[in-house]
């Protein structure tokens, strides 16, 4: 993990018709072999960042390079070393599944023979072999997504970009795609993905950049990010009664960093979990709050996002 593949310096995008800065002086380095995640809510600037790196969005200022090629000065060469999977299905509807791969290979300079052979190999590998001659209209959402990934890696790009790759996929297809991406990662493929699913970033990514309002808020491994909050346990108390008061009292606990009212209970963030459950129940009893359930979990990237911004990722 030493060769930088993507580098941005003060990369900024301000859209003409908006007062907001979509991406604000972003400094980022992605190294060879990483699965790098840009995590943030809608409007955080993730897609705009990916758009600038893949040459579709022209930066207002700053620099960005992919595999050492400046994406603004030399977009044609930059595109040659990238594979892109966009949020929407962009498969060629007038071609068959196999032809989609074949012509992609030709587009990136492969000979007819190589393109045909690699298309066949990829179709088998992505379990699309029996659909080779089918129209792309016949594919389910998950299969179309797999074909788009197959197409994007066919010319062996230096970096694979995926914009919200599992948005709109059913849970099974999502797991299947995670499996595919993990395998590519094991083979050494550098991947940059944007996502607003914290589980996706947590499970897949070697490093995660958390973004909000166009700014980079934190950047580390998922474990590093979670450790940075200083919270090692989250206690979720399902209860009925005066929850506001319960939250106030729990926040005073030794080792508690914060407590807030959620749907039908209180969520407590603590850094030492010794005897915390017993204390929580004692306090609740003392306040006359009826406790239905207590759950103890580890912090997630959601916790990190909340501690950084004070709001939930899903908002």
């Amino acid at each position: 993990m030493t060769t930088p593949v993507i580098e941005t310096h003060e990369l900024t995008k301000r859209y003409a018709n908006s007062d907001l800065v979509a991406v604000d002086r972003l400094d980022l380095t992605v190294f060879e072999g990483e699965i790098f995640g840009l995590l943030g809510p809608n409007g955080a600037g993730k897609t705009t960042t990916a758009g600038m790196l893949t040459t579709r969005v022209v930066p207002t200022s700053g620099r960005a390079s992919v595999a050492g090629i400046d994406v603004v000065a030399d977009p044609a060469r930059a595109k040659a070393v990238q594979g892109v999977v966009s949020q929407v299905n962009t498969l060629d509807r007038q071609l068959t599944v196999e032809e989609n791969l074949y012509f992609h290979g030709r587009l990136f300079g492969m000979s007819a023979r190589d393109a045909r052979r690699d298309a066949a190999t990829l179709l088998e590998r992505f379990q699309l072999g029996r659909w080779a001659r089918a129209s792309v209209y016949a594919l389910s959402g998950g299969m179309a997504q797999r074909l788009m990934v197959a197409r994007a890696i066919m010319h062996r790009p230096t970096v694979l970009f995926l914009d919200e790759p599992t948005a709109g996929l059913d849970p099974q297809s999502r797991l299947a795609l995670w499996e595919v991406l993990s395998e590519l990662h094991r083979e050494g493929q550098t991947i940059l993905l944007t996502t607003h699913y914290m589980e996706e970033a947590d499970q897949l990514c070697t490093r995660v950049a958390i973004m909000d309002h166009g700014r980079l808020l934190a950047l580390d491994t998922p474990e590093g990010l979670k450790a940075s909050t200083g919270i090692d346990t989250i206690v979720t108390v399902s209860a009925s009664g005066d929850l506001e008061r319960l939250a106030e009292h729990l926040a005073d606990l030794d080792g508690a960093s914060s407590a807030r009212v959620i749907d039908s209970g209180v969520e407590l963030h603590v850094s030492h979990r010794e005897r915390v459950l017993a204390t929580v129940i004692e306090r609740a009893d003392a306040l006359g709050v009826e406790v239905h359930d207590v759950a103890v979990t580890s912090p997630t990237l959601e916790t990190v996002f909340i501690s950084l911004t004070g709001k939930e990722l899903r908002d």
Partner: protein
Amino acid sequence: MATTLLSAGTRSRAQTSRAAFWALILRDATVIRKDLRLFILRTLIQPFLLSFVFLYVFPKIGQSVGGSSAEGQFATTLVAGVVGISIMFQGVQSVALNMAQEFGFTREIEDRVQAPCPIWLVALEKVISGALQGMVSAALVLPIASLVHARGVHASLTLHWWVLLTLVPLACLAMSSLGLVLGTSFEPRNIGLMFGFIILPITFLGGTYYDFNRLAPVQWGSWHWLQTLVLVNPLLYVNEGMRAAFTNIPHLHLYVIYPVLLAFVAGFLTLGLKNFSRRVLS
């Protein structure tokens, strides 16, 4: 997976772009080959109907068109016009409609512009592919237009090969460039408006059914207003050019047709390529 592939990053920019351009042409050819029957039907239906109604039905029912003198003269005028209009429809159809679809609901354009070449080359490929399709159309249409007619109605065609071989490609390029302008100017959901407000006026006022000289009697005072008006219509030069290429009837001077069509190609390409970049980049 193959190991023989030359990494795209190590090849020259020109090589990479050339490969991408040919792959795009090859892709378009494949799509047409797959739907060849549909392509031929789509190309021939309009010329067939025009020839059938004007050159077969009208003479049969004794309804004369183009003045009393000669149905033959009208047939000659119309055959050239039918080739011209087919070239235009092919240009608009293959470029503007496809582009509207790719910009619209399929969003395929987002993948196409990731091709390892400058963005303008992706648009230019569409134009050239559209022009090639226009040339195929012209070759298909000419026999149909000259064969479908009633007994006694005869189009007298004389092929002027030099004009034909230079002007047909130029006309096809001008019309597919127009297709690029239309396809990138209209929002995909408004593509119906394009037919009503652009294609229909161009078709009816483009000298398909009459040649330019015969419009002279339409005047206001001493001003030949209709002749002046139709001069802005690119289809007029295409149709007059077809008359110069296939017939001996009077037409606009070739010294006018060539430069004006070239100017239309330059203008449409400049505007269309600019529109295209604006649409795909943000």
